[in-house]
């Protein structure tokens, strides 16, 4: 009997408490947010030219350079979609001293965030890369690759773009480093890769090199040092 009475009292108290809670008047306002994140894609768009020094000489066209693009990625934000490639493969066959080859490619920002190139790393298997050419701002445009074992020069590489003529009062366009280059979304730029074989390169050898070009979102480029902050085109 006492238990039943206790249960009843508990139930009453519970209901009363619930009643109090429900009886509070309440109202609300709401913030509903949607965030569409951007897209950061930089890569090679197409090859404009792939040529070498002995192409113009019939019968003496001994070496061959071949360029191709690999690692495609398609930007979903472009209409129509744009496919860029993350790797440019350059292969030279039957090279010899004083031979040179060049590849002209478009580098494109296929994303929606401005890109800022902060770093170029040149390396080779069994080779040591040494910067040996710079643009007017002191940024690298050329590297010499030496044999890591013997120290002998193997080949020179240049990677650059040309400053647009409109920016100049002279007719000769200087070469500009890709470092500190900003590429806005949907924009592309012509890049020149040039390499020449040195006299001390060894016969019948195969040399492999890689060039890594690192681009970051423009607003974080300052983290890579004073060279990237503020970006030269915007500096007052």
């Amino acid at each position, binding site marked *: 009997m006492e238990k039943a009475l206790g249960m009843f009292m508990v139930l009453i108290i519970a209901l009363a408490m619930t009643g109090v809670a429900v009886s509070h008047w309440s109202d609300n306002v709401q913030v509903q947010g949607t*965030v569409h994140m951007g897209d950061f894609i930089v890569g090679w768009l197409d090859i404009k030219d792939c040529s070498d020094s002995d192409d113009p000489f019939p019968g003496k066209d001994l070496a061959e350079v071949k360029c191709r693009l690999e690692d495609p990625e398609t930007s979903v934000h472009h209409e129509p979609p744009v496919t860029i490639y993350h790797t440019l493969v350059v292969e030279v066959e039957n090279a010899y001293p004083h031979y040179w080859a060049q590849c002209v490619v478009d580098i494109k920002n296929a994303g929606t965030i401005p890109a800022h190139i902060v770093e170029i790393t040149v390396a080779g298997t069994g080779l040591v890369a040494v910067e040996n050419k710079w643009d007017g701002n002191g940024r690298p445009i050329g590297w010499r690759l030496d044999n890591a074992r013997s120290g002998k020069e193997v080949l020179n590489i240049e990677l650059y773009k040309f400053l647009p003529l409109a920016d100049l009062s002279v007719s000769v366009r200087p070469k500009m480093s890709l470092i500190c280059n900003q590429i806005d979304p949907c924009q592309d730029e012509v890049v020149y890769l040039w390499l020449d074989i040195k006299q001390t390169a060894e016969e019948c050898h195969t040399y492999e090199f890689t060039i890594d070009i690192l681009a970051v979102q*423009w607003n974080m480029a300052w983290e890579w040092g004073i060279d990237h902050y503020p970006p030269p085109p915007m500096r007052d």
Partner: protein
Amino acid sequence: MQDKKILLMPLMIMLALSISGVAFSTWSDNVKIRGTVEMGTLTIAIDYDETPLCQEFYRDPDNGQLMPGEYCGKNVGSCNISREDLITDPHTGKMGYKKVVWTINNAYPSYYCSYINFKIRNIGNVAAHIVEVIVTGYDNTDKEELGLRWDVPYREGAFTNDVDGDRENEDIINIEIGKLICEQIDPCTWYKTEIDLHFKQEAEECHTYTFEIVVIAIEWISAGP
């Protein structure tokens, strides 16, 4: 015997009726209280008069200060705020909106976007006391709830998500909300604060995130001391 009982019944009825008659015949009078209660309304709404504004910011690497706009004057991200669900309080006739829709496009790491005039007006006639702020987030691209970590409850924290698959959530969007809890808004007055978002490096490209912030107020008298 049976006849006697039948005879007694009408007598009893007559006696009862006569007693009632005496009662009715007593002089009487009365007063009345006629009550009418018009209940108030507890209605909070996004301010009708002030257009909601969002502002972009970037952190100046020189001095670490937040500066309006985007780095180097570029126009990359964009934000827009609009109001929905227009209501009119039936008692006061005042208007307001129940919902704000905040859309941010092309966000990127280190992008700051603020809703700088989150203005809540009490358009009812009962004082409101804000008791709760419910914040939820969702990754529409991966179809999963975002985590939420408060560093300062209901004020400073971050939406989190396991971006790299290591089963630990990383901060993807920092969120700061001006003080709301325990703010009282009297009828005909308003309270203004702001909501700040800061996108982290771990926020994923091409993803769409949605979030919802619900501010709940109750009648001030029930809020307790």
